[in-house]
């Protein structure tokens, strides 16, 4: 993967990332990213589905990295079109990745809070599986929850159990926004694991999954377009000149 994502490339898209409130240092580094990827053996090394079997492994890795980068850079973007660098040159949006570390929709000040972040406080709405679990409903990590999905505390629960094999993240959910490695792992879990009855982006990008007729009807076809539809659905797909969709496509290309 390092042949696809060099440190120079990584730094180019994260140069204006969030900084640690205490130290003033950038939140994460290229080495955190490599350390996280090392813990996900099938990322950039998955079993390629039939439709892409003619491609070389390096090309499939590049395809997967491009898809993940496009999601990360748009999902965590600063969206400051007036930002300039030290020489007063404009900073492009694709250079403003990793500026926002948490899902703003679950921020306590957000008006959407009641839509789904309080879902886990409602015993009539949530899955009874979570009844006896004291979970804190916050947005998770760097990859979005997916269009129309209700999530929050359940993501922490599965992230903690699937990746760490314990309840460390349900005990301290803030780690996904304060510990760089945990932050990367939370996003990689969402990228790798099928959830909520839908394929994982990894499965789509590697051609391990093909759409059913119903899924094709709602725009889940194949390739990166299907990943975008998976996460953003009608919010962004099919809308000409949508700024987020445009940036995502540009980064992917």
């Amino acid at each position, binding site marked *: *993967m*390092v042949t696809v994502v060099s440190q120079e490339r990584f730094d180019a898209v994260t140069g204006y990332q969030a900084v640690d409130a205490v130290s003033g240092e950038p939140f994460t580094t290229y*080495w955190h990213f*490599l*350390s996280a*990827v*090392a*813990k*996900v*053996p*099938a*990322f*950039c*090394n*998955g*079993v390629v*589905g039939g439709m892409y079997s003619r491609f070389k492994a390096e090309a499939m*890795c590049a395809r997967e990295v491009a898809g993940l980068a496009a999601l990360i850079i748009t999902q965590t973007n600063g969206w400051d079109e007036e930002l300039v660098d030290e020489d007063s040159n404009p900073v492009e949006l694709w250079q403003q990745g990793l500026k926002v570390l948490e899902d703003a929709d679950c921020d306590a000040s957000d008006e959407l809070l009641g839509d789904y972040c309080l879902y886990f406080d409602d015993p009539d709405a949530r899955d*009874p599986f979570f009844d006896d679990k004291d979970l804190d409903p916050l947005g998770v990590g760097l990859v979005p929850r997916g269009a129309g999905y209700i999530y929050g505390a359940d993501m922490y629960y599965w992230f903690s159990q*699937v*990746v*760490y*094999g314990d309840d460390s993240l349900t005990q301290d959910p803030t780690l996904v926004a304060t510990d760089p*490695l945990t932050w990367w*792992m939370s996003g990689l*879990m969402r990228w*790798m*694991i*099928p959830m909520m009855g839908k*394929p*994982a982006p*990894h*499965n789509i990008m*590697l051609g*391990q*999954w*093909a759409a059913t007729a119903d899924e094709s009807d709602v725009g889940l076809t194949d390739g990166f377009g299907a990943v975008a539809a998976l996460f953003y659905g009608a919010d962004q797909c099919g809308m000409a000149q949508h700024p987020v969709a445009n940036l995502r496509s540009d980064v992917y290309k």
Partner: protein
Amino acid sequence: MTYLCWEGRALSCLDDVGDGSGTYLNATSDGLLCIEAGDPKKNPDGWALADNVIAEEQESFKQKYPHCLPSTSLNYNDASTEEQAMIDALQFYELSDTPLVWQFGYYDDIADDWLYWGEAYGEELPLFIDRYGNVCTNMDTKVDQSMGRVMLAFNDGLFDMAQLDIDDTTSPDDYPMNV
């Protein structure tokens, strides 16, 4: 009666008397006399050849179902008591080729719990459990395309938190394959 295969013939173990009235176990009761004394050539009194039966070598579980998830194993002697009990119980399922059955369930408000229809109403899957609790199948011959996708998603969704962190002092030669 359990038959073993030896040079194309089916044979069964004899006890130390030879008529079924004695013991089949060795002196420490942790092995079979017939096996410890050698094959029928070395130990003709320990074995009975079955008449008119030609043995056919069977594939082992690993040969039949080579693709397992998560593909872990345990050393029986080093395993905990609980793990040993699991291995003891599951090896019967392994040897009997029992497929997994997906049971249909629903959440029952009155019982305040998940309830499931019986196995007879379930869906039999081409998945088999080995003695270590791995879910195994043969991706080439047993699973259809949709099941194959589920298995691949499972396989690719495994995490390995034991991998060491990488920093600027780590040699690229020590990077895992995917990095």
